[in-house]
C-alpha cells in the first residue's frame, strides 16, 4: 500500500493553508475521482520563496502536495517548472500504481500556478 514516507507526510502535513500575498495560484481537479488541489506560490526575483496548498483528496493527494511544496521552496521558477511526477514519486518512495497519477496532477497544478504568475507579470508589464 502506501510507503511509510507517504503516511508520515500525510499524518503530519506541512505547508497547509492559504498563502497570503501569493502571486501565483494553480488548481487541478482529478478527472476521475474529483480530488481537488489548490496551490499557492510566492515568487520573488524568479525564485519561489514560499508555497502552500489546500487539498480535498486522498492520502496520496495530500502527501504529494506536501512533498512538492517542500521541494520548490527556495527553487528557481525554471527548475520548479521542470519538476516531473518521477521526481515527486522518487521523493516519497513511490505510490501504489492506481495513485501515481496524483504525482502527475500536482505537477500540473504547479505549472498552472507558474502560468498564473507569468500572466500576472505580463499584465503588469503591459500596464507599465
Amino acid at each position, binding site marked *: 500500500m502506501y510507503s511509510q514516507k507517504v503516511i508520515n507526510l500525510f499524518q503530519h502535513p506541512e505547508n497547509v493553508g492559504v498563502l497570503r500575498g501569493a502571486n501565483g495560484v494553480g*488548481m487541478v481537479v482529478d478527472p*476521475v*475521482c*474529483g480530488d*481537488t488541489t*489548490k496551490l499557492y506560490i510566492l515568487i520573488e526575483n524568479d525564485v519561489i520563496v514560499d508555497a502552500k496548498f489546500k487539498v480535498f483528496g486522498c492520502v496520496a493527494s495530500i502527501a504529494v502536495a506536501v512533498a512538492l511544496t517542500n521541494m520548490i521552496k527556495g527553487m528557481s521558477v525554471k527548475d520548479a517548472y521542470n519538476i516531473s511526477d518521477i521526481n515527486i514519486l522518487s521523493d516519497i518512495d513511490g505510490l501504489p500504481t492506481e495513485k501515481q497519477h496524483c504525482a502527475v496532477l500536482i505537477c*500540473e497544478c504547479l505549472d498552472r500556478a507558474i502560468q498564473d504568475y507569468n500572466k500576472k507579470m505580463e499584465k503588469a508589464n503591459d500596464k507599465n
Partner: protein
Amino acid sequence: MNRIYLDNAATTPMSSEVLNEMMPYFTSAYGNSSSLHGFGREARAALDVARDRIAKGIGCDADEIYFTSGATESNNWAIYGIAYANRNKGSHIITSKIEHPSILKICQKLENEGFRVTYLDVDRQGFVRIDQLLHYIDADTILISIMAANNEVGTIQNLQAIANIAKEKGIIFHTDATQAIGAINLNVHEMGIDSLSMSAHKINGPKGIGALYVRKNVPIVPFVLGGEQESNMRAGTVNVPGIVGFGKAVEIATRDIITNSKKMRQLRDYFINEVQKNIDMVYLNGHPIQRLPNNVSLSFAMVEGESILMLLDSVGIAVSTGSACSSGALEHSHVLRAMQLPLDLAQGTVRFSLGKSTTKADLDYTVAELVKIVAKLRQMSPISRAQVGKMTGGDPKCTVKK
C-alpha cells in the same frame, strides 16, 4: 492503543463457539466426507448436521443447500447456472445497478455470450425501482437477481414485493443475501425465493465457505466440474471444518437475531445521532430505518473518505470507504453513483459497520476522534460550504502527462 473494529461488513471475527465446533474436524475427525470408511462417515455426519442447521436458518430443505467457497462463487454460479439451464425459455436477465461485483461481472460475461441483461436503477435511498422491474419484464425474462441488503449503504430491499412479482410472472428469483443473514429474518420457502447466496465469514464464521440455496424444481447447471460432491452439482473435496463452522454460525446468527439486531440498531442510531450532533454537514446514505442493523454509511462534506479512514486507522479505528477509490479502482462506488450522490459527497463517504462486540464506549471514542479528524481535513480542504454537493465531474484536461 485502543483497537476498534468497525468494518464488520468486510469480515467478522470468528466466535469461539464456532471455532470449538470446528476444531475436531481439523485434527481427529479429518476424514473426506466422500470416503466410505468410518473417518469418511464421521465427516459425512457432521456435514449433514451443518446442512440441516443452514436449511433451518433460511427455511428450506437440506437438499436444497449446496456448499461453495463463498458468496462470490455462489453468485457467479447462480447467475451462470440458472441462465444456461433456462436458455431454452429465454435469454433475458434483470438485476440492479447496486449489486455486488460478483453479480455484475458474471452478468457482463453473459451479455458477451448472447444474453440480454437489464440493470435496474435505484432511488436516492438505494431502493431498486420496482416500477422499472415491472416495465422491463418480458416474455424472454428468465431470471431476476436483486440483493437482499446492500453492503455499502445498508438499504434493505423490498424483497417480498420483488419475490411476489417474480412468482406471478413465473420468473426465477435469486437474491444475494450475504449481508442479510443474521440481520433480517429470511424464510425462502415462505417468501418465494428460488435461489439465495450466503457466506460464513460475515456472520462470525470461517472464511472461504459459503452456500447457494436453489429451490428443488429450479433448473441450474453446475459451475465447478470434476467430482460427485454436492449431488454432482459442485465438485471439489468438501471443506468439512469450514462447513461445520458455517452451520454453527448460521445457527447462532438466527438464534440470536432478535437480541443482536435490536442491540446493534440502538448502537447504530446512537452513533449516527452523535456524529451528526457533533459534526455539521454529515449525511446518512441509504434508508434511515429500513437498513441493516449494523450499517452506518456517512458522507462528510468537504473531505475525502480515504483520508478519514487513514487518520482513524492511526488512532486504532478500522473502517472502510464507501468509494472504491482506495481499493484499486479509482472510479467512484457504483452504488453511490447509482443513488445519484454528488461526486464530492461520494468522495467523502465512510462506512462504519458494527459487530456483535461493539460497545457504546467504542463509538464514543470514534466520535471524539472523528470530530478532530474531520476538523483537521476540512481546514485543509479547498472546497467551500457553498460548493458542497455541486461537484459532478472533474477537469478532463488534467490527465496530460509531462
